[in-house]
């Protein structure tokens, strides 16, 4: 996978993850063009797009569009399911996820994505394992006040 974008129906970017090195200018240009193209598509149309030399796979969930760029020989359908699995993970983590959760807790959404996809490839496909990894890291967060106190004392 080359990159993943989440944006709202109004075209506002909610999350961006790039797995290929690109300059900021290119990223902005790609984002702008893609958001425009995807938003212009009608609901009953195909979820796949040929765009430049890439394949775009997108799906709309409520007010959010999830959009992935893959290479020509990749499997479009499985990418569609990767999006769906990510939505399931978000849903489980936030408990009935909505766009607001992603807006206000975007860093969490990134953490979940990083446990699921790493360097553009599916890392762990078991839902249970992904959530376990996130919970473990989050548990530390709760005892984090402790941790920082201790380290302050040592210093």
């Amino acid at each position: 996978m080359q990159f993943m974008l989440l944006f709202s129906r109004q075209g506002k970017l909610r999350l961006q993850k790039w797995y290929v090195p690109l300059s900021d200018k290119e990223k902005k240009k790609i984002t702008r063009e893609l958001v425009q193209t995807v938003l212009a598509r009608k609901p009953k149309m195909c979820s796949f797009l040929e765009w430049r030399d890439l394949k775009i796979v997108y799906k709309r969930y409520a007010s959010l569009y999830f959009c992935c760029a893959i290479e020509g020989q990749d499997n479009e359908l499985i990418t569609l399911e990767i999006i769906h699995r990510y939505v399931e993970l978000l849903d489980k983590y936030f408990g009935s996820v909505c766009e607001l959760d992603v807006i206000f807790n975007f860093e969490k959404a990134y953490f979940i994505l990083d446990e699921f996809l790493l360097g553009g490839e599916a890392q762990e496909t078991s839902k249970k394992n992904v959530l376990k990894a996130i919970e473990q890291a989050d548990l530390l967060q709760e005892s984090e006040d402790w941790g920082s106190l201790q380290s302050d004392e040592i210093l």
Partner: protein
Amino acid sequence: MSDVVEKTLTALPSLLSLDSQPGSAKLSSSSKLGALIRGITELTSKHEEEKLVQHELASLKDQVSSPNISMRQMKEAMVRAIYCEMLGYEASFSYIHAIKLAQQGSILDKRVGYLAVCLFLNENHELLLLLVNTVLKDLQSTNLIEVCMALTVVSQMFPKDMIPAILPLVEEKLNHSKEIIRRKAVLALYKFYLIAPNQVQHIHNKFRKALCDKDPGVMFASLHIYLQMIKDNPEGYKDLTASFVTILKQVVSGKLPMDFNYHSVPAPWLQIQLLRILSILGKNDQMSSEIMYDVLDESLKRAEINHNITYAILYECVKCIYTIYPNSDLLEKAAKCIGNFVISSKINLKYLGLKALTFVIQQDPKLALQHQMTIIECLDHPDIIIKRETLELLFRITNAQNVTVIVEKMLEFLHQSKDDHSTIDLVGKVAEIAEKYAPENKWFIETMNTVFSLGGDMIQPDIPNSFLKLLSEGFDSEEENQKLRLFAVDSYISLLEGEIKKLPQRFLQVISWVLGEYSHLRTDLDSARVITLLAKLLDMKQMSGETKTWVLMAMTKLCSGESSISIAQSVCDDYSSSMDTVLRQRAHELQLLSQDSALRGQLLTLHSGSEPLEVDSSLSFLDAFVSEALAAGAAPYKPPHQRQEELAQEKALSLEPYELSLPINMSSSSLTGRQSPTLMSVSSGLSGDSTELSLKGNTTILKLEGVKRVWGKEGYLSRKDPLEEVIQVENPSSPSQPTGTGGTPSDTPTPSATPEPEHGKQQLASSLFIGLGSQTSVFLMGKSDPTAQRIRRKVKTPNSSMAVTERGSVSSTSSAVDNLLCNNIPESANMVQEVTYETPPPYKTELDARLNEDLIDSTPSPVQSNGVETTSDKTESEITDKPRDECSSISLPAKLSGLPHSEVTSLCSNQTVELSACHVEKHDYVLLVIFISNSSDSDMENIHLQVISEQLEVSLLCESPLQDIAKHSMAVCQYLLNVRRPVVHFEVVGMLSYQTSSENQEVEFSYKLPLTSFVRPLEVSTEQYGTMWLAFSNDTKQNLALVTDGQDPLTDTLDLLKKKLGLHVVEIIGVEGIVACRLVQDQPCLLHCRVHGRTLAVWLRSPIPELPDCLLYHCQRVLEET
């Protein structure tokens, strides 16, 4: 499932009161981020947003640079900075602080720090170097979460040069007790493999362990690496085929834990990854493919549930079945599967069905016939994506009979399309099929006119070039050529008389050239009229300088007669003082030649012969000028890489002390003439000779590059051209492909010359799918088209590719004209697809001659003069029972057996025929010897053997083709191999078709050769080495292991390389050594080695971009094996 999240958020203003919702409850209402987000959503204009964000960024900047900021505040600030960047505002001041946060923060802060680093920087960013120590520390941490975070960041981005620093730590994690750590370590190594494959070569065994890991997650992660490695080198992993099949079997039958199920389908991601791997392993390999048939069948059967994920697996299965060695049962099932996709009402499936159909249609055109009505419906589908994919499909089934309809459909689409990328792509395809299958001149020219008009100036430059080339070189019949040219002239004149404003620049250039060259063919056309039309072009505002140059050149060719000359004169007045130097030169030429008709007649004869231009590629005529300039104190020429090196020297931070060694010393001393006491002998030899030598070095550079890249011995890229032309003229009724029975006779006008879509879909279908399906054998569509092609290029002499150049030139001294055209001639080498058996390349090189001498003159040798040999019988049982052992009993022709050669390996076999091969290394070439043994009780007839390779030039070593092989006997074919593009392993693929008992049969095979078979020692002196080193611009550096068991590690190591790879050790001085080698066809590569503690720092340079990396790979292999 999407219902769960189907909660729309409509009223944005109500955001403020949404705190009680589950998601936002986690956010403290006083948080600054919350405030920022709310602030932004309340705004109404982009301008206000910008103001607010800029203000926010300013306060962030103050905050993060304050010395008192706590890490916790820093974390909070980073999150806001990420948010601002996502909105599209730059927050680069925070990048360094993100790294600091990752370094110094407590675990949770660190997590945000690492996240920010990943989001802010890309893997080429220089700040990333500062992260290396942090990663190193965290990898050694006892805290699992820290290790996880470090591995996560490493798997996403890491500076390539720093991989050795952390590699041992990551490697160690492969044995960690926690599966999550092992999994992430595997993915980190995958990343390393992608960016620097050489670095992880030594861990390949550990990857096997990961593949056998008891945790399915780790095993799954290892498949990413395997897919990549197998893509790069399928031969190396054939032994794993059975293991992959076993894993897939277990997955399919639900042996994995339930956690890995997705919508009750067992581990679909794993299945798909395995199917991809299997399809690569089974490609062209019957034995491996046979192992897979069962599990593929099982996968097809199990995929029953009506869900996307099942279709994803089915789609991958179908692709695999059509990629591997065919099995009729599976093919039938796969075809049925594709059918279900295509007729599905779900649009995504329909799309994939079309895509799959496009993929398989080349092997089985009948499938298109089955679905023709669906395809026709898809052509008018409201979704443009479906339409586009359908055209792609039609493109694959184009033949001489349906070309007009298909082109019409494509042009229709082009008229509607607004997307540049697909326009360029489609225009290229139209041009390709139009040129290949054009039924008549008028149609061809008109289609190309539309192509040029629609493609505009984004059109790929090779389209106008090959069009002009086609016009100038023509076809077999001169009469046809003239007709086509005349038609083009007529068409362009009428275009220029119409609306010229909308014509794109490239099209105008084509028009100018054609009118300049061929308008004289139309005898009733006054040249003054053409010149007037051309002059009108010059007055247009939007004309580019380049196009004007083309127009002026055309005028130069045309201007004769009083009225023409007067127009030309006024044009000259306008442009002879132009700021554009090329344009000015053209104007002057026009002026001069229009006045001096005698000179003009001499230079521009109408039917100029095709003697090639003589080009002195070494530019030796400039020598006097250069030495004069040098004598007058001018600085000698430095090649670009040398200039860069000197620049690099000035940089303060140098990571590798090695970088400043030999060559820089050499260059600086040779330029200044100063003696440096620290130099080794190579450089001191150079420095003594000072500028004179460096000048000599420079002429070598010019010669080398000129000869290599543009001009061959016989002219412009001649070595590759004949091969290409062989394809163009391939006889449509070659022995293996009997003339199609269903096709209409060649010159009958196609029934669909003017098809009207409104006549009904049925009629459209019949015109689209004509010529499909009636052929019996499986073939590539384009190749065996039964109808003769109207537009076909004639066999070229090696020099004919220069035709455009010659004719385009106005005067022999004005090399700029040549350059202009020359630069635009496409690299025809890219188009080389195959070498056919019947027509050996029409060129002869010195090498060829020598070869034939070698092989033919050996009268007692079993090799006959045509390179085909027939030997003793073999009983059938012997062959079929032990195909592997049988190979060893095949022996090389006596003449070759004394030379270094590889073992004879079996390529493939079936009931009738057994193929095996080996390669022989000769001084100037590599010989591929293919043994075909007929083990059946009947004779093989009409044998047709094709051998091709992407990276190698393959030519057959005999004049008369192999025809028949009697029962139980054997034939030998020899092919000459030369390197076209170096790779680590070369692959040669081939197809043998033959008839037994009048039944057509085919077998495919592939053969691998390492680069080392082509490496020869290059015997040069130290001085020569020095000059060559400076001339080569492609380099690679790497540290290798030293052979440390002997007395002198450097000498031992270099001797080992010499022995194993056939390198030439030029000289060893102290801790440095220089080594040289070449590929068979004089493609040199130089190595400079220096001992650094326990490692050997090697620096490779070559004029061939790919060579250093490939050679390095083999050096590394050799040293690791010991």
